[in-house]
């Protein structure tokens, strides 16, 4: 416990320092609150709007978690398929790369036409943005097995499936988890894009929608409060995934360097 406190200390100190500088700048420079609210204004906006923010946060958090799950499933499945089939690699890989260049607003209306104004089109958008890093890192991970390893496994009478299960799949796991972390970092902004570039019913709101409405309606402190929630959520997700990695791929943990 004390060790984890100590390892969090630099980040906490840096954040506190930046907050202090921000507060000082906002209070003394004469910048309008509607342009840059001071941290204390953001905090008070967060407190007085806590019900609304909590509701919208729950919606966005759900989008990110489910969207990432979808992205992981799609990325892993596609990576395995591409790894096992040279034909699929040639056929699908270029399309997967190209899919990353499609601006979401172009297809937003179509997604809504297919899946309605609710959660599902948002999940598809997040998955579309997030599957790619998982795909690329997993494909590389699957191919990272020593080229001599298949020979050895064949003389141990391993089938193609056993070679995959005993060697290639575990070898790809750390890489896939790295891909998941990259996906997560873009997943939160992906949720913002999903909420703001697909037509949405008035009843459906997440933090992304709220930020756009508040920023346009001169409710800047509340937009900042919502942003702070996204910020903290991204950090929390990132480190939870790090914890998951320690459990799922413990052989891959580098011994920590001791620092005085």
């Amino acid at each position, binding site marked *: 416990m004390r060790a984890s406190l100590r390892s969090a200390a630099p980040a906490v100190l840096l954040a506190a320092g930046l907050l202090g500088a921000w507060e000082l700048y906002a209070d003394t420079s004469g910048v309008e609150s509607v342009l840059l609210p001071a941290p204390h204004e953001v905090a008070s906006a967060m407190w007085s709007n806590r019900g609304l923010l909590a509701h919208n946060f729950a919606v966005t958090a759900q989008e990110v978690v489910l969207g990432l799950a979808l992205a992981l499933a799609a990325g892993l499945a596609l990576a395995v398929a591409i790894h096992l089939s040279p034909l699929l690699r040639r056929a699908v890989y270029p399309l997967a790369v190209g899919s990353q260049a499609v601006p979401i607003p172009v297809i937003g209306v179509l997604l809504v036409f297919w899946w309605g104004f609710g959660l599902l089109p948002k999940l598809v958008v997040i998955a579309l943005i997030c599957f790619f890093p998982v795909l690329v890192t997993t494909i590389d991970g699957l191919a990272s097995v020593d080229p001599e390893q298949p020979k050895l496994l064949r*003389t141990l009478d391993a089938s193609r499936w056993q070679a995959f299960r005993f060697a290639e799949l575990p070898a790809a796991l750390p890489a896939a988890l790295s891909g998941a972390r990259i996906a997560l970092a873009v997943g939160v902004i992906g949720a913002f894009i999903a909420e703001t570039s697909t037509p949405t019913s008035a009843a459906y709101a997440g933090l992304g929608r709220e930020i756009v409405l508040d920023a346009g309606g001169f409710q800047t402190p509340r937009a900042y409060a919502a942003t702070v929630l996204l910020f903290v959520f991204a950090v929390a997700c990132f480190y939870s995934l790090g914890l998951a990695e320690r459990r799922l791929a413990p052989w891959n943990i580098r011994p920590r360097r001791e620092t005085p």
Partner: protein
Amino acid sequence: MATELQSHPEPAAPAPAAPGADVRLAHLSFSYRTERGEQLPALCDLTLGVGAGQTLAVVGPSGCGKSTLLELLCGLATPAAGSIQAPPAVLMPQRDLLLPWLSALDNAALALRIAGLSRAQARRRAHDLFCELGLQGFQRARPRELSGGMRQRVAFLRTLLSGKPLLCLDEPFGALDALTRGEMQEWLAATLAREPRTVVLVTHDVEEAILLADRVVVLSQRPGRVIADLALDAPRPRGRTDAVSVALRERVLGELAQGMRR
């Protein structure tokens, strides 16, 4: 390390050392196709045999096709010409290729898992031999935590537990420091004395060949063919500095040098 797994009521018999059949290679030729599409001959008209239960050492200059010979024996490649008569063979590559996510015991028992045993069954079957071969206490260690010599022990045990009568060892101790290598050669000699198998040992270490083998075959430069075939009948265990060993070493080195000049 952690304590023993459990005690086991049932006898943990590793796969029995089937006596197997003799190995006969007749007029074997093999070529590689290079990336530019040229045929690169690796072995040329190679004929040799190993009696069941014997250890044959194959020495020769780098790139003389020694590793190719093992791949042919293991059925990983098909010869362009000639015939192979060999019992089922298992390969121990130069690098240990232990799986980093498995414990030492699970790595040793890999062939048993592949044969369809559950993790617990495979561990139980591998456990006794694992401990008797000097690995006691390292069951749960990951490969990364083991020294080079220990890793090779685990890799050899994995080879042994495949239950195949013919072991193809490709420079098993080539990556070890001299001290550990000497120790491992003695360990292998002792292990083979209690777990007899037919062994084809590819090495560039003449001393290793003389310590371990019943016969030494010297290959020429590429394309490899047999230029000397020496029976070693000195009693075992053999010492490195025994007069017989020293004389044999001189002889093999002489043949090697002649082969290089030819």
